[in-house]
C-alpha cells in the first residue's frame, strides 16, 4: 500500500516545474496572456520535446504510455505556473482518440498528437451549461461523416489541428482543422492562458470514433480530474504568493506577515487546499485502477478543488491588497485560471449532485 507518488512521478513534476520556471516565468506568462492568441508555438514545442504532448498516449503511437495520474501531475504544475497554451484540450483529444478510436484512426492521429506536431482539442459545450455527453445535441449527418452546427467554449480552437466533437447520443467524431468547413469565432476568454472559441461546423467532414459512446464519459471524467489538478496547482501557488508577499511587504514598520490576523488567514487558506491534494490523486488513480469509483471521485475532486481554488484565489487577492487587484500583478492570472477550472465542464454544484447520485444516495 503506497498512497504516494513514486520517484519517477516526483521527477516528472520537478522537470515540468523547472521547464516552466525557465521558459515561462510569470512575466512571460503575462505577456502571452495579453498577446493575440494566448499561444506561443515555441513554448508548446519545448513542452512537447519533454514528451508532455503524449504522456498518456500508448507507446505504440509515440506516447509515453503513462496513466492519468501522471498526466494530472503535469497538469498541476502547469496550473501552478499559470502556463498558457493548449495542453488541456490537447490531452483530452488524445485520450478521446485513444479510448474511442479505431486502430487506423489511432495510427492516423496519435503519433502527431504525441509529438505535438499536431494540436488537439475538444468541442463539447453547447452553451446553457450543456457540457455532458448525455446532454449533447449536435447531430452528424450522412452516416456520421458530416457535421453542421455549433459548439462553444472550444479551447484554443484557433490553433488546434484536430477537433474531437461531441455528438447527440454521446458519441464523438474527429474533424480535421484544414477541412476548411469550420468557422471559428474567438470568445472574449476571461482566462487568456486558455482561450476558448465558438465553432460553427458548416458541413465539416467528420470521422466518427467507433467506441465514442463508451469513451466520451471517460474523457469527461479525465477532464474533471485535470481541472481539479490545475486548480490544486493554482490554489497552492496563490497561498505561496500570498506568503511571499506577506514576508516582503512592509506596513507599520514591519512585514505584514507579523500581523496575526493575516497569518491566520494565510494558514486557513493553506488548510483549505493542501489536504485536498490526495483527492485528485485518488480520482486520477481510480480512473486507471478502480473503475467503480472513477466517475464519482472525478466529480468530487472537480467540485471540491475548483471551489477551494476559487475561494483561495479571492483570499489571495485580498491578502495582496491593491496590487492583487491589478492586471499588472501576477495574481489575476491565477484568479482567472480558477474561474476557468470552476466553470469548464460544469459547475461544482452540478458535479456534487452527480457525485451524490453516483454514490447511490
Amino acid at each position: 500500500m503506497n498512497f504516494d507518488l513514486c520517484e519517477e512521478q516526483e521527477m516528472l513534476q520537478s522537470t515540468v516545474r523547472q521547464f516552466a520556471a525557465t521558459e515561462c516565468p510569470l512575466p512571460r506568462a503575462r505577456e502571452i496572456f495579453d498577446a493575440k492568441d494566448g499561444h506561443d508555438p515555441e513554448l508548446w514545442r519545448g513542452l512537447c520535446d519533454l514528451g508532455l504532448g503524449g504522456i498518456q498516449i500508448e507507446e505504440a503511437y509515440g506516447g509515453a504510455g503513462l496513466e492519468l495520474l501522471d498526466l494530472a501531475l503535469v497538469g498541476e504544475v502547469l496550473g501552478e505556473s499559470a502556463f498558457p497554451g493548449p495542453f488541456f484540450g490537447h490531452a483530452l483529444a488524445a485520450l478521446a482518440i485513444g479510448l474511442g478510436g479505431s486502430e487506423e484512426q489511432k495510427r492516423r492521429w496519435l503519433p502527431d498528437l504525441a509529438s505535438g506536431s499536431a494540436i488537439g482539442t475538444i468541442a463539447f459545450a453547447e452553451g446553457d451549461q450543456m457540457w455532458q455527453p448525455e446532454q449533447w445535441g449536435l447531430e452528424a449527418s450522412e452516416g456520421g461523416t458530416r457535421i453542421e452546427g455549433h459548439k462553444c467554449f472550444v479551447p484554443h480552437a484557433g490553433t488546434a489541428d484536430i477537433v474531437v466533437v461531441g455528438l447527440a447520443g454521446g458519441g464523438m467524431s474527429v474533424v480535421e482543422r484544414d477541412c476548411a468547413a469550420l468557422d471559428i469565432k474567438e470568445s472574449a476568454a476571461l482566462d487568456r492562458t486558455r482561450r476558448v472559441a465558438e465553432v460553427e461546423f458548416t458541413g465539416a467532414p467528420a470521422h466518427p470514433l467507433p467506441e465514442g459512446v463508451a469513451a466520451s464519459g471517460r474523457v469527461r471524467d479525465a477532464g474533471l480530474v485535470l481541472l481539479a489538478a490545475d486548480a490544486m496547482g493554482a490554489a497552492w501557488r496563490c497561498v505561496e504568493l500570498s506568503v511571499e508577499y506577506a514576508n516582503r511587504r512592509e506596513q507599520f514598520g514591519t512585514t505584514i506577515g507579523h500581523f496575526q490576523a493575516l497569518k491566520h488567514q494565510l494558514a486557513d487558506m493553506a488548510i483549505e487546499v493542501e489536504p485536498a491534494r490526495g483527492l485528485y490523486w485518488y480520482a486520477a488513480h481510480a480512473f486507471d485502477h478502480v473503475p467503480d469509483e472513477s466517475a464519482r471521485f472525478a466529480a468530487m475532486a472537480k467540485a471540491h478543488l475548483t471551489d477551494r481554488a476559487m475561494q483561495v484565489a479571492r483570499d489571495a487577492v485580498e491578502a495582496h491588497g491593491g496590487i492583487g487587484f491589478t492586471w499588472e500583478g501576477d495574481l489575476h492570472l491565477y484568479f482567472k485560471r480558477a474561474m476557468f477550472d470552476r466553470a469548464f465542464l460544469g459547475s461544482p454544484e452540478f458535479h456534487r449532485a452527480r457525485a451524490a447520485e453516483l454514490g447511490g444516495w
Partner: protein
Amino acid sequence: MDLRYDDDHERFRTEVQTFLSAHWPPPDRGDDTDRKAQERAFRLKAIEAGYLARSIPRRYGGSEQPADVLEAAIIREEFAKAWAPGDVAGLGPSLLVPTLLEKGAEWQKQRFVQPTIMGDIMWCQGYSEPNAGSDLANVQTRARLMGDEWVINGQKIWTSVAWLADYMFCLCRTEPEASKHAGISYLLIDMKQPGVDVRRLKAINGASHFCEVFLDDVRTPADWIVGERGQGWDVSRATLKHERNMIGGATQTLTYWDRLMRLAERTQKDGRRALDDPRVRDRLAVIEGYVRAQEFSAYRQLSKAAKGEKAGIVQSMNKINGTNTGHLIVKLALDLLGDEGLLEPEAFDPVTSPDVNTAWVARYMQTLGAAIAGGTSNIQRSVIAERGLGLPRDRERDQSRQARRPSQERRS
C-alpha cells in the same frame, strides 16, 4: 418607532415634487443646448430652492439648510424618481469640500468650493503610495518650501480618475524630522502642469480608473496648504471618515440584491427557474436576511442622525458589512451564471451599467476591490474591535505611531 413621515415632512415632499415638475426635465428648446449645461442650470435653481448643496454656506455657493436627514432622504427619493440630477458626485464634493469647510483658509473656500460642487473643476485624491497603503501615515512624497512655492517629488498610487482631474488634494511629508504622523501636510496641487505624469493602471476586471501619479519637481504656491504644516494627518482623518460611510451605504447592496433576484428569475436550471431550485431559494433567503439587516441598520443610523444622536458601534460596521454581503451575492450569482463565468465582461461600471449576465463577472471581481479600497477588511475589523468593542490597539500600529517620537521631543 414610526416608519411614516410626519405632516411637515410630507408637506416638504410636496414642495419638492412641485419644484421638480416645474424644472425637470427642462423644456426641449429645439436647439442643441447640451445635457451638461441643462444639468448645471437645474442645479443652480435647485440650490437656490434649498434642495442641493444643503450643508454648504450660501457664501460659498451652497443653499445652507439646517441638517435634516429626513428632508435629505426625501430629496434623494424624489430626485431619483424624477431622474433629476442630484449633487455632483466625486471625491471633490464628497471629500475635499467638507475638509475645506472644516479646516481650510477663507480664500480656499472662496476659490474652490463653488466650482467643485458645480462640477466645474474635478479633483483627485493623492493619499496612497506604494509603501503607504494600510499604513497611510508612511507617505514618502516630499514637499519642500522653496521661497513662496512648495516643490513636490514622489509617487502616488490608486488615484481614481487622475487623468481627468484638474487638481489633487494630497498628503506630503514636509517635516522629515518630525514623528511619522506629525510630519505630514495636506496640499492642493494643480494637475495640469509639467512634472505631473499620470499612468492609468489596469485592474483585474479590465477597468482602468485607478492611476499612478508621478510627481517630479511639481510646484504649488506656499499657501495651497490646508491646515498648518504638520497637521495633514489630522486634516485627512475627517475626510477618510466620509469615504468609509460612502462605501458602506446600503444602496449598493440593495441594487445588487434586486439584480440577483432578477438573475435567479431569468436563469433556467434543470428545466425550471433557478429561483425554484430549493438550493438557490435557501441561499437567496440567507442573503436576504443580511440584506434586510443592512437596510434596517441604515434606517436606524438615519433616525439616530435625525435626532443628532450617535448610532454607536453599528456605524463602524457599514463598510465590512456591505463587503461581506456583496461577497455572498456575487458568489451565488457566479453559480447561477455557470458558463458565462468563462467570459470576460466588457468594460463597464458594475453598479450603473445595464443588468446583463456578464456584468456579474465584473461584479464578482469588483467586490474584491471593495474589500481593499478605503481601508481593508482587516483594518475595519481592528477599528471595530478597538473603538467599538474596547479591545486593545494593535501593538504594531501603536509602535509605528510612536516610531519617530524621540526626535520630535528633541525639536520641542
